[in-house]
């Protein structure tokens, strides 16, 4: 298990040549950065798509210069059509969920820092690691290729409910080749995620250095480990579901297609078909709900780590924080039905899923309490990384609490599929998770790039982004209470017309917040080349990634991960590999 490894064969074999070193690299640090930049690219594409949608929602008939070049059919005369709105919506959701929220907190930062934090030289399977990354790239390429085919991306959303997604172009433009490519892309992504999760699990279990007991793992490592277990179990199911959906489309099976469907006055499935659209929903959300936690758990780990460091306090209740991660991971596989209260599923099942959903809120509440307790009586250093972690807690509360409405089936029957839900998940798994990633990026830039990110630009970035996300997503709650449905390309219903000013306000907030990310990009690029050179441990942190002990011998761990402000010690932090002095 956790025995010291004498030699470090992979690390010492310095890769030669540009291709081996930066492109087809097996070095976990390079692969971590590759995932990071893959996600950075995806998040900018996804953000631009959201801009286009938001502009359309605020001013439906407006000309968006250049849109017609991207798709002459989707935007004749540069004005977005309803179906193209849905195409962009599908692509936005898919990019953000899979290629940003699944990719950067786990595969990006995790790949880079898991081995460093446990004192390993490498991930357990470096070649598999490289393969995982390139599979993710292939998946992204297939997904983005849908932008350039005639019918454009599919219009069925990131949940791709059949029969809309199963019956081909009869159901609408984009449901032909676009939908097939989408399913292929997701299936490929599943394979990459499965390989990646095996790697994370093996690395955490087998490559911990001497003394790095499970109780001494930083919470980041616990979060990555539990997330990897969840990925392994959930992406396997999604892969199976994608294969079935693909077979329905290409092989004329009818897993999800019931008999006697009539589209455009034509019967398109025989009465004997006998498939079930609900089956897809069950399989999809069996993946989909753990996926929500796959996106947020690594962020929880990062925030715990950063809050402790900049509060100069041990994480409050380390063991219950680990336990809470585990309980969330386990329960996340038992609550998928809360996405389906009004789907036509048995109303009795709704009761069970509802109760379990309330239970999963408890460990999340405990974590929030412990984050507050961690900064309580600390000495807070308000670096940009710390600010983003504080922002995470604020957003996690603002987004998470509204889950209680949606967990109640009777209330959900009113709020389901409204903007209330959009506000809820954007705040809690979108904005909060990205705040954790920003926090991690400012915190770990010294290790990622050997340079510090600029603090002044960082603070500006933080303030605009914090105010911005509240202005974008909070109004969605009020629109949801009003009953405004999501996935509408235009608000033509009578009761929706008065909401137009809200849409314009949110659009302007989105444009400003998005533009503020250019400050982050500039800061990142400028700092990588010109930033202040980082010292070994600029934040006076305790975990191994800061020990610099990457010589010939692996580090030996003597202490827990968060020995801050230990009573009776001169320094207010003690690193994990600092030997304990025997007291006489």
């Amino acid at each position, binding site marked *: 298990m956790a025995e010291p490894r004498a030699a470090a064969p992979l690390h010492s074999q310095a890769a030669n040549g540009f291709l081996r070193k930066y492109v087809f690299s097996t070095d976990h640090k390079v692969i971590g950065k590759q995932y990071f930049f893959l996600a950075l690219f995806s998040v900018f594409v996804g953000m631009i798509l959201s801009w286009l949608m938001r502009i359309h929602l605020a001013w439906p008939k407006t000309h968006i210069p250049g849109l017609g070049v991207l798709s002459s059919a989707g935007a004749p005369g540069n004005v977005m059509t309803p179906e193209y709105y849905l195409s962009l919506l599908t692509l936005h959701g898919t990019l953000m969920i899979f290629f940003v929220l699944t990719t950067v907190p786990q595969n990006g930062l995790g790949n880079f820092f898991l081995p460093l934090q446990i004192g390993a030289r490498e991930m357990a399977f470096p070649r598999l690691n490289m393969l995982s990354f390139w599979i993710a790239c292939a998946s992204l390429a297939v997904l983005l290729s849908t932008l350039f085919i005639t019918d454009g991306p599919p219009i069925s959303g990131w949940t791709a409910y059949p*029969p809309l997604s199963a019956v081909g172009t009869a159901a609408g*433009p984009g449901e032909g080749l676009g939908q097939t490519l989408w399913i292929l892309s997701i299936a490929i992504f599943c394979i990459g995620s499965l390989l990646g999760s095996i790697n994370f699990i093996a690395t955490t279990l087998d490559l911990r250095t001497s003394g790095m007991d499970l109780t001494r793992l930083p919470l980041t490592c616990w979060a990555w480990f539990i997330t990897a277990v969840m990925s392994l179990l959930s992406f396997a199911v999604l892969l199976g579901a994608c294969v079935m959906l693909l077979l329905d489309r290409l092989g004329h099976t009818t897993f999800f297609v019931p008999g006697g469907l009539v*589209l455009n006055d034509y019967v398109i499935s025989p009465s004997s078909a006998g498939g079930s659209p609900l089956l897809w929903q069950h399989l999809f959300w069996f993946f989909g709900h753990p996926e929500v936690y796959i996106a947020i758990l690594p962020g929880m780990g990062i925030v715990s780590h950063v809050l402790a460091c900049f*509060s100069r306090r041990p994480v409050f209740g380390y063991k219950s924080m680990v336990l809470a991660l585990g309980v969330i991971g386990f329960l996340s596989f038992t609550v998928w039905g809360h996405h389906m209260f009004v789907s*036509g599923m048995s109303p009795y099942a709704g009761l069970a899923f509802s109760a379990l959903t309330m239970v999963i809120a408890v460990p999340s509440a405990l974590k929030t*309490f412990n984050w507050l307790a961690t900064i309580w009586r600390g000495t807070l250093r308000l670096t940009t990384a710390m600010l983003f972690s504080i922002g995470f807690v604020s957003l996690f509360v603002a987004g998470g609490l509204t889950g209680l409405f949606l967990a109640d089936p009777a209330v959900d029957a*009113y709020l389901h599929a409204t903007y209330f839900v959009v506000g809820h998940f954007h705040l809690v798994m979108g904005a909060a998770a990205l705040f954790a990633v920003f926090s991690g990026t400012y915190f770990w830039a010294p290790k990622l790039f050997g340079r510090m990110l600029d603090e002044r630009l960082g603070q500006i970035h933080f303030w605009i982004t914090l105010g911005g996300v509240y202005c974008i997503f909070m109004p969605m709650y009020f629109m949801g*209470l009003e009953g405004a449905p999501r996935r509408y390309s235009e608000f033509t219903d009578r009761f929706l017309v008065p909401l137009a000013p809200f849409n314009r306000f949110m659009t302007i907030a989105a444009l400003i917040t998005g533009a503020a990310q250019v400050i982050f990009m500039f800061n990142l690029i400028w700092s990588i080349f010109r930033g202040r050179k980082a010292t070994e441990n600029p934040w006076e942190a305790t975990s191994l990634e800061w020990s610099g002990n990457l010589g010939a011998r692996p580090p030996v761990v003597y202490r827990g991960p968060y020995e801050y402000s230990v009573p009776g010690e001169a320094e207010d932090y003690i690193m994990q590999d600092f030997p304990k002095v025997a007291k006489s």
Partner: protein
Amino acid sequence: MAALAVALVLILLTAISAGLFWGHAGWLPVDTSAHGPGVDHELNLTLLITGLLFGAAQLGLAYAVWKYRERGDGRKAAGGRGNGRLEAVWTLAVAALFVGLIFTGYGVWAQMYLSPAPAGALRIDVQGEQFAYSFRYPGPDGRFGPIHADKIDDAGGNPWGLDRDRDADSKDDVVTATLGIPVGRPVELLLRSRDVGHSFDVRELRIQQDMLPGVEIPVHFTATRSGQYEIICTQLCGLGHYRMRAFLRVLPEADFEEWLAEQASAQ
């Protein structure tokens, strides 16, 4: 400086959010169903509890950031690793609160879905298709005629695929594009779709139910207030999803009978 700013911004965000929620009475549309007040009560109760937790967490965060900022006065952070009893108390309190909340909501859910429609409820068939609704009343015989998928012909005015010549039960079925119902009388809708997933959502009724091809999903309710309301589709059904809509007309009993007779004579 930064600590003060964080604290003030958090307080401001909390105040604005709470203020807007406080005025939520103006956000919720008028309630026209017998079970609706139960839903609204549950929603308001949840709003109250989450509002208090939201305020406590945000203000606590604001206070801690301001109070415990590093001031350069040599104050050292406290070194405690946690307090198991405090955690246990908080966790149990939250668990009791959340689980209690869910059980209060079950009563409303049971009323809507776990009990059958009252005897004598008016049964109406509802069909969704890309991108329209169609409604069917059984007529004087009280029975719906069979649906023949191959006879479905929207342009020919037969969205249900009825064969009125051969099926006796179909002869008196009344097919409409508007859902007319009497006020104060229980109604049972049988929801179905003939192509992709749709949804039946009337916010004033506090009812939203997906419509799925291949299954017939019953919902029942009693409307309490006359008027005209929008029925909208909330399940992504294709490019025309945003304009899939029909109207619900809640009429006094006598007006309803008159309206239905008019519809029947127009068949």
